[in-house]
């Protein structure tokens, strides 16, 4: 570990940065121009030549058709951004890959090697498709291993990874296009994210926009309408220049009380314009945006039952946080607890590099690693970074042919101030020891091995290092992930907050037969993201298709679905069919939907109607929590109305914004509807209890009875707390247990046969269902069902199970649950 280097990348909307961590310090690598920040701008010329960074940024003004910037909001979409002269069109992740390649080249120039692995930061509000696109960007740039970290966590690590300060932290990250506010907590040296909030459409760009409008109006009042027709080529060019000049003035105002906005227009005689702006004027212009950002902070604090006084430290991240007006307002709110000595522009990259160190992600290529020394091979497992002063270290000796295992080992710290006791090896050649760390530094250890006579046994690699510092938990999953079932229920695989990587398998059954060898006949397993047990309320993020099965699969065939998320949130999905031994791993990721403007327009109209309906019912029923849930819906829809004309004019960013606003509005309406439906759910809870409690008591196995009791109690607690999501989860479990118990009641056979006989024409295969019914009736007539141990009852149960599988799920429910083909 001594020569390991860890790399962190901040892939920003406006600027990107790369940092290295060598186990002691994290430092930012300057680009070829000697700057720590590389503008996230790409230019492709007519011959296909690619330029990244400052040089490309200069071309934004003069050559906008071949230069692109600010595509981060489009990550995870299928929008290709055109470069006219080269006749090329690149996906957002392909553009990000160009920036990463440029950053990796800077490391090669500075450190002499091209990194093979890196941690890349993403906004806390990024969802799976955007994270997936970011990982892909890293891979396209040549990285073999990519790990993602949420930007606020990276900032907090960077600001306090060696600090002994415990308590609640707030990270306020205002970037070019997004605001992320995160609440973190350090307890016993462990850093944990409590919650985060933000605004995907609030950033420095919006402030620049306000400044541009102010400057254009001021110049027009002075008789110099410098922009003119904004739709014309000249207008667009002048607007871009004015934007650059305004941004420059805004940066100057962070240091000075006055700044000039200078603009030249070569198309006009002597066309130079100068305008002066004061810091006070800028403060007035940016006040609405600052108020919006502080409102997000207050909401986050209130939601987590914290007051500003309880926040021990506030970390400011992003260029706009350099504005004195913004710093003053945040300082007022938090009584001046701003973290000092932190560079808001490079903090994220440094934190990402530190995180790479904490997860042991070495960036050095294999060719640079030292060749293994001669001796007995030993594998040593230990934490890279830990808050524990006495962590465990586990080792295992791996003798080659002819080598013998040592008798015992001892671990010694390189500074000579600590050595452990001699520990005997287990018969499998392993040892477990506790080592002692020196506080807040890198500790290097050496394992020494001895034979029975006490002579040294040479080890091939017995040295390792552990850094004592803030320990960071595995990255938590931002939203729950599960599988939609044909009855519109969700089998949650990973709850919100599950640490990554994670892997889980659950058993399901197919709801219809699948013909062998047919590629057209696919059974769908929809993967959804969201907390609701109602599948349609969640968001479809992927679809696993079972197609081309080797043998006919009858309805009701068992399939085991495995979902696996790596540390970066990349999803791998697999379905195993035990009956045929086949495995399917054909997952297609759903991108962030980019509906056409016409679709978005229709959706806006329907959301407006839905909002009216929900609002009406909310006030009619007088449910205060529902009133609160829809408080922001009007503002979201008004914002969507404003974004619509821009989207119609071809602004991709506005189209994306429109889509997200509609999603947020519909999410709030879902929450309100769930609250309005609470009385029905409460009644359903009472009905479930009355129906299933006696059944489970009489027919359930001891394990089922035990589980049912606990589910019943958990449901009662959810009812007390009015927690609809939690209650639905426990009711689902109670129904499952109740139905399983009911199936053991001999009378259930009669009920099921009577029901099937009455609905036989609805079966997927009427002839087969009729044949099975005839067999069941014959068996009923000859066997005594009172004898529960009788073979007749078992046969009858198997026949009823077969009949049951011949009945399709409700088509309405199946359609709602993304045409799921499994139960």
């Amino acid at each position: 570990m001594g020569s390991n280097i860890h790399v962190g990348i901040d892939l920003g909307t406006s600027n990107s940065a790369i940092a290295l961590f060598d186990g002691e310090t994290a430092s930012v690598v300057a680009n070829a121009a000697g700057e720590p920040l590389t503008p996230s701008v790409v230019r492709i010329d007519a011959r296909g030549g690619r330029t990244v960074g400052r040089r490309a940024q200069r071309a934004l003004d003069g050559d906008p058709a071949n230069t692109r910037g600010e595509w981060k909001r489009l990550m995870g979409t299928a929008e290709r951004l055109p470069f006219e002269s080269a006749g090329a069109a690149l996906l957002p992740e392909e553009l990000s890959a160009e920036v990463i390649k440029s950053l990796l080249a800077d490391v090669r120039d500075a450190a002499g090697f091209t990194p093979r692995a890196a941690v890349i930061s993403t906004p806390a509000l990024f969802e799976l498709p955007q994270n997936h696109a970011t990982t892909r960007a890293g891979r396209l740039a040549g990285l073999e291993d990519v790990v993602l970290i949420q930007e606020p966590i990276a900032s907090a690590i960077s600001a306090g990874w060696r600090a002994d300060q415990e308590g609640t932290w707030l990270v306020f990250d205002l970037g070019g296009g997004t605001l992320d506010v995160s609440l973190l907590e350090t307890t016993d040296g462990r850093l944990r994210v409590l919650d985060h909030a933000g605004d995907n459409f609030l950033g420095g760009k919006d402030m620049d926009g306000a400044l541009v409008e102010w400057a254009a109006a001021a110049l027009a009042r002075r008789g110099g309408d410098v922009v003119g027709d904004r739709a014309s080529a000249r207008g667009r060019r002048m607007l871009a220049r004015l934007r650059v000049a305004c941004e420059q003035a805004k940066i100057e105002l962070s240091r000075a009380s006055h700044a000039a906005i200078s603009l030249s227009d070569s198309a006009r005689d002597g066309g130079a314009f100068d305008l002066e702006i004061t810091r006070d004027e800028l403060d007035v212009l940016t006040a609405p945006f600052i108020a919006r950002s502080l409102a997000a902070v207050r909401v986050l604090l209130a939601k987590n039952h914290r007051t500003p006084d309880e926040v021990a430290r506030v970390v400011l991240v992003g260029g706009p946080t350099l504005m004195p007006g913004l710093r003053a307002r945040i300082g007022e709110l938090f009584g001046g607890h701003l973290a000092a000595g932190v560079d808001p522009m490079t903090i994220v990259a440094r934190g990402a590099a530190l995180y790479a160190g904490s997860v042991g992600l070495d960036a050095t290529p294999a060719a640079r690693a030292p060749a293994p020394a001669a001796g007995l091979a030993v594998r040593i497992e230990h934490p890279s970074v830990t808050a524990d002063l006495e962590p465990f270290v586990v080792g295992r000796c791996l003798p080659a042919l002819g080598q013998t295992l040592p008798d015992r080992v001892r671990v010694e710290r390189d500074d000579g101030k600590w050595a452990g006791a001699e520990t005997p090896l287990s018969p499998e050649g392993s040892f477990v020891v506790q080592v002692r760390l020196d506080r807040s530094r890198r500790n290097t250890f050496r394992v020494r091995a001895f034979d029975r006579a006490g002579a040294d046994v040479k080890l091939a690699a017995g040295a390792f290092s552990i850094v004592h510092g803030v320990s960071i938990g595995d990255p938590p999953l931002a939203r729950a992930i599960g599988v939609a079932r044909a009855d519109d229920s969700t089998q949650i695989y990973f709850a919100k907050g599950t640490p990554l990587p994670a892997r889980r398998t659950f058993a399901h059954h197919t709801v219809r037969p699948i013909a062998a060898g047919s590629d057209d006949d696919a059974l769908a397993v929809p993967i959804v993201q969201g907390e609701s047990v109602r599948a349609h309320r969640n968001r479809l993020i992927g679809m696993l298709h079972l197609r081309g099965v080797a043998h006919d699969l009858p309805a009701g065939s068992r399939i085991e679905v495995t979902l696996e998320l790596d540390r970066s949130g990349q999803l791998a999905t697999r379905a195993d069919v035990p009956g045929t031994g086949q495995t399917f791993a054909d997952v297609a990721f759903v991108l962030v939907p980019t509906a056409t403007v016409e679709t978005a327009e229709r959706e806006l109209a329907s959301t407006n109607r839905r909002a009216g309906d929900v609002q009406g019912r909310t006030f009619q029923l007088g449910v205060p929590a529902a009133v609160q849930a829809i408080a922001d819906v009007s503002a979201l829809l008004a914002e969507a109305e404003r974004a619509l004309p821009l989207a119609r004019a071809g602004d991709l960013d506005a189209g994306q914004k429109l889509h997200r606003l509609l999603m947020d509005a519909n999410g709030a309406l879902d929450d309100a509807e769930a609250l309005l439906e609470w009385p029905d759910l409460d009644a359903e809870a009472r009905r479930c209890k009355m129906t299933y409690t006696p059944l489970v008591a009489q027919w359930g196995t001891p394990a089922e009875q035990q589980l049912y009791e606990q589910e019943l109690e958990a449901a009662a607690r959810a009812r007390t707390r009015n927690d609809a999501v939690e209650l639905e989860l426990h009711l689902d479990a109670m129904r499952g247990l109740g139905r399983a118990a009911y199936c053991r009641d001999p009378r259930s056979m009669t009920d099921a046969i009577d029901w099937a006989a009455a609905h036989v024409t609805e079966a997927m295969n009427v002839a087969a269902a009729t044949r099975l019914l005839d067999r069941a009736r014959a068996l009923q007539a000859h066997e005594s069902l009172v004898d529960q141990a009788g073979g007749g009852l078992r046969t009858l149960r198997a026949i009823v199970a077969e009949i049951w599988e011949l009945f399709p799920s409700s088509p309405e429910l199946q359609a709602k649950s993304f045409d799921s083909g499994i139960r």
Partner: protein
Amino acid sequence: MTADTDDVENLLRARLENPFLVLEVAPAAGGAEIERQGQRLLAELAAGLDGARRYPTPFGARARTAELVRAAIAELRDPARRLVHEWWAGGLEHAR
């Protein structure tokens, strides 16, 4: 009907992955003890130690993986979620 058996199986799977069971620590264990035990199990699993690969439950031994251990540590870091797991662990203890 078979789907109902799956429901029970899936439910058992979820409940028997209780973090206290996975980490083999008592519901009263302190934060530092939980972190240290979790880190120890992760190291043992990474080193391929046989003893770390299974953990006892009231319904028989189950396979223990690094993912399960990491999830268990994270669950118990959150005070609200820890309370819920303490409650379930108490119930499962009765079932022994």
